[in-house]
């Protein structure tokens, strides 16, 4: 995993970081919206 990351072009690393931030944000939003179901 570390080796894979260390050989990733900058553009892909930025895309990965952006996807990670989006995933955290969307998960938080979905959890907020669904909290009434719990």
């Amino acid at each position, binding site marked *: 995993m570390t080796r894979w990351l260390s050989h990733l072009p900058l553009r892909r690393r*930025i895309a990965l970081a952006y996807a990670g931030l989006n995933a*955290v944000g969307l998960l938080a*939003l979905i959890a907020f919206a669904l*909290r009434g179901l719990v």
Partner: protein
Amino acid sequence: MPAGLLILLYLFAALLPLGLAWAQGLEPRSIADELASGAGILALAVILAEFLLLGRYRFVARRVGTDIVMRMHQLLARGAAILAVVHPFLYTTRRAPAPDWDVNRQFFVMQDFAAIWPGMIAWLLLPALVLMAIGRNALGYRYETWRLMHGLGAALIAGFGVLHTLRAGRYSADPAMGYVWLALLGIALFALAYVYVLTPLAQLRRPWTVSSVDPVAERTWEVTLRPARDFAFGYRAGQFAWLNIRNTPFGPHENPFSISSAPSTGPEVRFIIKELGDFTRTVGQVKPGSRAYLDGPHGHLTVTDHDAPGIALIAGGVGIAPMMGILRELRARGDSRPTALIYGNRSEDQIVHRDELEALARDHGTRVTHVLCEPPASMTCEIGLITPEILSAQFGDAGHKQWLYVLCGPPAMMEAVENALIALGVPSGNILSERFSYD
């Protein structure tokens, strides 16, 4: 502060209002309504956090990279715009005026015009601002005009967005959450004021004078500045600065350029500038003695704090500017590490400081390879573009994998070179590049 901690801080700021809304313990409405409120809250928080991703704050940019910070600024704004645009359409509860007994707005969405209009303005401005930023080049705005509109538009969106949530938001009616919104807005506007007011004020105390403007290649100039007062500009070779010549620092008239001088050679700072855009077209007309201001230094394209066994510089066109600074600094310091420069241009006329590069090859042992699309018959060089074959021939053996590679040039060139170097087994951590154009 490590980059990972900065990302966690960003996430904390962006998710704090949503967490506070959750912590209020109000009875959840339908999933669609909660999604609508949550999308609005998250969008506004991301928009306010955008002001911290301007690339001008050295404590952030030094660790993450100015270009990466600015790219995240662009991308995150697009996500926030989508959330903000869909947010009003997700509500399903009744939109009639809320009766007094519905204190927590469990059954009615706030419909008062006084609460809605600020949101409508922000709702219209935000996608317009994002689209204008994406299409900036195609729209043909002057850089200075665009920058002013972008800053002003962003401040209006932040202000109207917070006003809207304070008046209309079910969760923002909570006083604690209201104070958090105001605090986040205050931080955002302070961040903007830091760039447009505080930094120019600091620049007034550190004026520069243009010493000379010399032609160094076809439509390319080297501008030399000297401090007009006694102060030190602590930069590292390869960094860049926002340069403002002949204008007040309180305005949008500044452009980023790589520094081509070496800090070890004295207080003068040089920039290599090619005639490409609005300001650069007139750079050859700048008179010695003109007043100038610098915001910087910025950027992480520096080699002196890396202990790689060798340094390879790969430049295209005016991308030679930071490379000249790095080569001059290595020479001034007597750095004995092997260096190589691959320098691509269309024609021989575009080669900057050819004599100095030859001197560097002769006296400092720098391996200089010119790559020209249209070479003259008399010149020994590679022909065409900087290809994987050229890179493989120069850096293909195992010893070169640990070298440090510095790239500067057109985006397509940098992407191709980076991919080729990674294919040769060079770890991406050994490749330094700064690019400000991704779309």
